[in-house]
């Protein structure tokens, strides 16, 4: 049992928590947060996987995670933007109906 194994299990747990959140949470922002938590879980799994041999650090998963982080932030930004635009439309239609 190495610490990398613990961390990869923690990554799996974060993935499961995030998936649970995506399915169960009702607010869009919670769903977006849950997707991000899932992402952190996978990244953790990858990084722990890079260290599974205590003597060697495999840099390839690190590069994959770097790519993944940037993609995650891009997806989050787009989702938040769509959410804000929907909210804006709702708000202006509410104002009109008043």
């Amino acid at each position: 049992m190495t610490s990398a194994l613990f961390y990869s299990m923690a990554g799996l747990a974060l993935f499961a928590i995030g998936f649970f959140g995506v399915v169960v949470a009702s607010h869009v922002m919670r769903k977006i947060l849950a997707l991000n938590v899932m992402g952190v879980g996978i990244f953790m799994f990858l990084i722990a996987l890079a260290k599974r041999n205590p003597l060697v650090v495999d840099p390839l998963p690190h590069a994959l995670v770097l790519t993944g982080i940037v993609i995650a932030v891009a997806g989050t930004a787009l989702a938040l933007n769509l959410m804000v635009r929907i909210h804006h439309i709702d708000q202006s239609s509410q104002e009109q109906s008043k």
Partner: protein
Amino acid sequence: MNDLSSSLLLPAIVFLPLLAAIIAYLIGQNRLQGPINICFSLAQFLLIGLTTLLFLHEKTDQSERYIIGGWGAPLGIDLIVDGFSILMLALTGLLTLLITLYSASYFSGKYSASDKSLRFWPLWWLLISGLSALFMSADAFNIYVCLEIIGLSAAALVALQGNRAALQAALRYLLVGLLGSLFYLFAIAILYRSHGTLDLMQIAETTNHSFPDKVAMILITIGLLLKIALFPLHFWLPPAHANAPTPVSAILSALVVKASLYILIKFWFDVLGETTTLGASQVLGALGGAGIIYGSWCAFRATQLKLLIAYSTVAQLGYIFLLFPLSEYSMGVSSFTGSASQAAVYFIVAHACAKAAMFLAAGNLILAQGDGEIAQLKGIAVREPLNVLVFAIAGISLIGLPPSAGFIAKWLLLTTAIESGQWWWVIVVITGGLLGAMYLFKVLSLAFSTDPAVIESRAVKSTAPVSSVSSVPVSNVMTTVALILALITLALGFNAEFILNISNTVSEVNDI
């Protein structure tokens, strides 16, 4: 060493759309926007056409690899082209050219706000580059990046319409896409852990019945089924495809869902073929069958024209999933060979052309009518005969009546089902065909209804438009493009041997 693997062609297919995206973004609002984009699409079409011809000419019995960066498989990323991917690429090239022609007049300012085109063109080209890169990718993580390009740009394109329904559909589409990619990414992590490489071929070589591979396959299947919208996971597709701008709907139904399907087929048959089981493929087939029935039924009940077509996509995707049980049974071992895979490949091509034609024609009809309600289409055949003709031809192909591409695809599917002794799929296919005929004839009979009173009332209405519905005369280009696509669908039906030859190449290639 042959021409294809050493030449510029393969990377150029990815880089040209990227370049087009940059240029489209930089020139911004300009009268030259349309012509430049048409030039780019023509160049892209020629590039892909040349690649296809070279590939067919070489008649290689192996897939071609292009090594990026001179590193080679485990370290670097390779591009790979085999028969199936060349077919998907050719489809991409053809649809890119035609839909770009269509969009150039759709976004010219007459039919939509002019600054939509500013957003549309760069995103469009990024989507095309993502699709082209995906069909050539030989690296599991590279496929993830391509899937994200496709998913994000497709969601952004759906959101282009700007109204609440479109934004909501885009948001749901985006979230589902992100969730699916995360599942895929997790599977990639597991695969890398057990195989120590990301190259698909090398994973395929070392794969065995091990437990992690099975779990990875399950995760990949779940993630990609979410993106393909197979029956119980289809909920996001109809609103997204129905609310997008017409050219976007066409490419989404024709190619974007097929991109995920392509990856699933690749993993299911080539990469992790040994982990699949008979039971799992029967489950996929059952879901496909349920999708056929459910999608057709929802299409029959739809009141909006584009929603009807979107539900029909759900149904048609179900047919392709019959590939999984049929091919499994016919070969004993899962492999992408034999008549079932030919049927599936033919189905993908036929559906892509027919559905693109149908969406474009429907977009034209909606423009001419000013309204997306099916009930409003009464007697439209008199005013828009060509577009209704396109709709009818595409519909014939979707139902599977001769002479059309859809007929041959369904014929192949039925014969395979009978040969393999799985007669229950025959019932599903025939029921689906009947339901398809019901919902398409519902539209067509309305369109062809020659009740004079109706036409008169329409004429009166169109001379004095009262309500907010505004109808615009449809430009010839847009009608012609839809017509060309419909004619291609017919030609594929008359000239079946051509595609069957290519799909023979496909099966040969995948045999190795």
